[in-house]
């Protein structure tokens, strides 16, 4: 079974390690509660 999460465009900045493993077609073993990413809305506010 699988769960797929779809976010709206530019809504999340996913953690880089997860993205880079996936870009190598390598799955990452994770557990419930581990950090997935941060809202970009908040990030852009902080940057401003």
């Amino acid at each position, binding site marked *: *079974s*699988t*769960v*797929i*999460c*779809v*976010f*709206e*465009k530019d*809504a*999340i900045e*996913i*953690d880089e*390690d*997860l*993205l880079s*493993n*996936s*870009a*190598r*077609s*390598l*799955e*990452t*073993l*994770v*557990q*419930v*509660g*581990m*950090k*997935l*990413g*941060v*809202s970009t*809305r*908040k990030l852009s506010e902080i940057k401003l």
Partner: protein
Amino acid sequence: MGHGSSKEDSPSGSKEEGSSRISHLKQRLHLHRHHHGRSSGSSSYQKILAAGGFAGIALLTLIHAEMKFKDKWLACVSLGEQTFRTEISDHTDRPVWKSEKKLLLEKNGPHVARISVFETNRLSRNNLIGYCEIDLLEVIIRDGDSDFDVFDLLDPSSSDIVVGKIFLSCSVEDPIETEKRFARRILSIMDYNDDAKLSFSEFSDLINAFGNQLAADKKEELFKVADKNGDGIVCADELAALLAIQQEKEPLMNRCPVCGEILKVSDKLNTMVHLTLCFDEGTGNQVMTGGFLTDKQAAYGWMFKLSEWAHFSSYDIGINSGSSSSHILVFDRKTKRLVEELIDGKIVLSMRAIYQSKIGLGLMDKGAKELLQNISEKHGRRMNLAESAQDIPKFVEFFKDQIRLSEVKYPLEHFKTFNEFFIRELKPGARPIACMERDDVAICSADCRLMAFKSADDSLRFWVKGRKFSIQGLLGQDVYSNAFIDGALVIFRLAPQDYHRFHVPVSGTVEKFVNIPGCLYTVNPIAVNSKYCNVFTENKRVVSIISTADFGKVALVAIGATMVGSITFSKKEGEYVKKGDEFGYFSFGG
């Protein structure tokens, strides 16, 4: 051919040689014909002899080697386009592998094997130290009392220099034994209750899976033919006899259900041999690892296996290109190490047969979708019976390194059925939630193997190969909105051993749930990486929309899979959910 075998060469002289070859081949064959009075195996055997050549399965065992210095060694065997490798030995100058591999020797096919021995190196590439080339037919027919043959290993830069010796054995399997073993393998696929016998319903499923419409139309007739003693079930021997009889009259299988290759009606022995090897691949029955195209590739070790999975994921050239995929590599985020994920060989076999060839997916249109549904429902019912609780200890033992019972809320005795254990809860605090106080930080929804992409396009480039995949197709018309176009996509894949409850990744309000009916394909990478299969857009699923302050709308799609097709939610529409809250679970069923 062969370099410096310790045995004397066979005498020359064509007629004598032919007769000698046959008599020696007879000796080398492990004949048990007096135990089996059937004609088909005998005729197959006669055919080999009449042809004066050999077509069949050779069992090659790399026993050990004697090298001139100490190292950790691995050996590769290349025959035709295939290469297999042993495990890495201890640090020694006398490496012992005892690795076996069944090899198909066809009458007009390759029979000269190249054996390469490498010293291994953790940091750089492994180095080829010695090699030899061996005519397997010669080894098979060579006279001798010894159980093994010895060959010199030559220096790759100068064939005059001997750098070691390799000890190996090569024997031939009796065609009758091949036939029986094949019947046992094929029977095990549909033998849902593992009693090594097929009921009529299991037999029907098997005939359907062969994809031969003519045979499917007369299943009852075939069952009666197979059930020689009339006890209402077909055992392996009866199935073997049926396959042999039918093979003579009208073959049940027109194509190999594993690789999709068209089977030549005229070449029955080769057909049986081909099927046996195909069905054995990836089952863990054989010690050597395969799926490499060259010995250099095989010698790359871990890193090559990683890239093998990554780059051969479309399976364009047939399932054998990914034959080591019974071990999928994943990166453990916690330990920052690559780990191997074990999959039961039988599951791999079935998945490959179905998903990795055009013919396999073609079978889907001939009733296999219903078959998956039926298997899942049947399995669901079975897993809800009290007897299924007996499977829990075996399951825990098989995954002993991956299931931490100390985290489970209740002791094993608490679970009255397997399904209850499958949806086990964890102790409070067993899964700490990252940045609990910050709703702008999203968390992982499940204990799983995760893939994350910035967009659907990236997911198609690196992972999802189904040609019809799209966000719109995934979410369905009812909840799809333009805001999700080019949105990020995270795939949480749960393996059988995983904690099977999924949690809310973001805090917000559950807006709605939409049920989308569909199939129950497997969600294993074997299917997701197949361009012929559209798992995520065709499987049964429930789409939920969570409305959040920090991420806008987030769609969470729970996708059912073969066996595990039952999806239950523990939250309701309109409810506010905090990230980390349990959201639902998957269980056995259709």
